[in-house]
């Protein structure tokens, strides 16, 4: 069974607005895959991720996570499996210290303190920030905040990770660190970004959205080398390829 299944997914923001943001999307994601979702600003990358998390429920067509339709009655199950990393980390981190924030999810799901502690430590270890546990959130750098956001989701035990522009506002070394950490994580990863170099380093499969439809779905290297296709969609060749031809 596919982890994520979309069939003829359509979405518009309000019933009154005739224009669909997403028009007839069909795709499925298997276990262990990491998928990049690319496209110009406003093409609906974030919208797609939000539909999967159940934040936007008024879609048409079919969206399933692990066989559960994304609907109100299934949200509890779905949200334990799937985590969403916001573009703006400050929206995601609302507790005072790193430890408290990472423990927020597990505690909400009613886990015992011993187990919470174990999970938090594991999540901090996976994201390599064990040393930050007692730090105040507002004293973290942008890169650290991003890692704490990811740890907060790993601690719940989610193995489907949705990330919205994870590399935005990161300096090169933080970015590199994040790439390594994402590569080491198991499970499904879906990364929406227009940082194509980042996608190249983290995803083997890429979906290019254009005008609300899928313009390309396949091997990352293939699409990222296709200059005409990228430029037609407001994107440019990744720097890594620019000087190769």
């Amino acid at each position: 069974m596919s982890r994520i299944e979309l069939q003829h997914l359509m979405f518009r923001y309000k019933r009154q607005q005739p224009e669909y943001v997403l028009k007839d999307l069909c795709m499925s994601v298997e276990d262990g895959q990491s998928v990049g979702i690319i496209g110009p600003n406003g093409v609906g990358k974030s919208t797609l991720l939000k539909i999967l998390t159940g934040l936007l429920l008024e879609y048409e067509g079919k969206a399933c996570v692990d066989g559960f339709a994304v609907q109100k009655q299934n949200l509890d199950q779905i949200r334990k499996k799937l985590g969403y990393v916001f573009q703006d980390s400050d929206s995601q981190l609302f507790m005072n210290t790193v430890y408290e924030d990472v423990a927020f999810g597990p505690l909400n799901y009613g886990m015992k303190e011993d187990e919470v502690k174990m999970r938090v430590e594991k999540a901090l270890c996976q994201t390599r920030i064990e040393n930050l546990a007692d730090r105040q959130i507002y004293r973290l750098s942008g890169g650290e905040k991003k890692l704490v956001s990811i740890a907060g989701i790993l601690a719940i035990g989610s193995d489907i990770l949705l990330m919205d522009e994870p590399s935005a506002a990161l300096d090169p070394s933080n970015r590199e660190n994040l790439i390594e950490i994402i590569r080491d994580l198991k499970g499904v990863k879906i990364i929406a970004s227009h940082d194509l170099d980042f996608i190249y380093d983290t995803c083997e499969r890429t979906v290019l959205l254009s005008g609300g439809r899928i313009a390309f779905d396949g091997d990352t290297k293939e699409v990222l080398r296709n200059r005409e296709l990228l430029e037609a969609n407001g994107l440019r060749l990744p720097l890594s390829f620019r000087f190769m031809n």
Partner: protein
Amino acid sequence: MDKLDSAIQTIHQMEDMAEENRFFCHIHPLAKVLVTLWYLVLVMSFDTYNLIGLAGMSLYLIILFVVGEVSVKTAFRRLRLLFFGIFLLGAANVIFDREVLFRLHGFAVTGGMLSMLSLFLKAGFAVLAAYLLMAGTTVNGMCHALRIMHVPGILVTLVLLIYRYLVLMLKEAARMRQAYLLRAPGQKGVQMRAWGSFAGQMLLRSMERAEQVFDSMTLRGFQGEFPFLKRRWRMRTSIVYAVSWGIALFVLRKFPIFYIAGGLL
């Protein structure tokens, strides 16, 4: 320094103090809150002219400042404006109450002088007691204590959220003010033309952020109340702390310790 910057600095200072690994930080916040409130009630209940008895209540502060290793200098520097305000208010008493109560080697002591002193002591003690409470307790700990005292969950969650976003907002306001002043040299504040849009822009952005914050809370299973972690409180010490202070303060309030001590000389 600007108000916004100094506010950010204050928050950092208080957090640092509360997080430091001192004796005081391991006592359950509830014990500290109850003792502080008990202390405040006792101090305020002193009669206006019972100055020496009132002065005795300073023992509590002295002990906590020394044992808790809290810097007295920082406390006074942080609270100096407040003390000044209290002083002004107390000065009114000297002017309005000139009845001579007794003479000290010829110097006429009026009721107003005594009541000013007592007002000053009471205010100072109260401010310092509250300061000591926060110097050893994080806002999170305070909220935990409030929750145990059955303050409704929604209010406690609200306080935690305000506190968490406070630094973010202060920084944002400071940035905006800086950007504004860079383009408006010579101005001290925001001009009337920009009154609405300056704070309004910030407000709209805050509301957008609020929406995202809520989304991210629900995505991690938020059910309407923040969970609290049981921390490293030393329960037995906390109970001993609360009970012994409770009794000691009551004794200080009820019995004229200083007269006894002075009488023994």
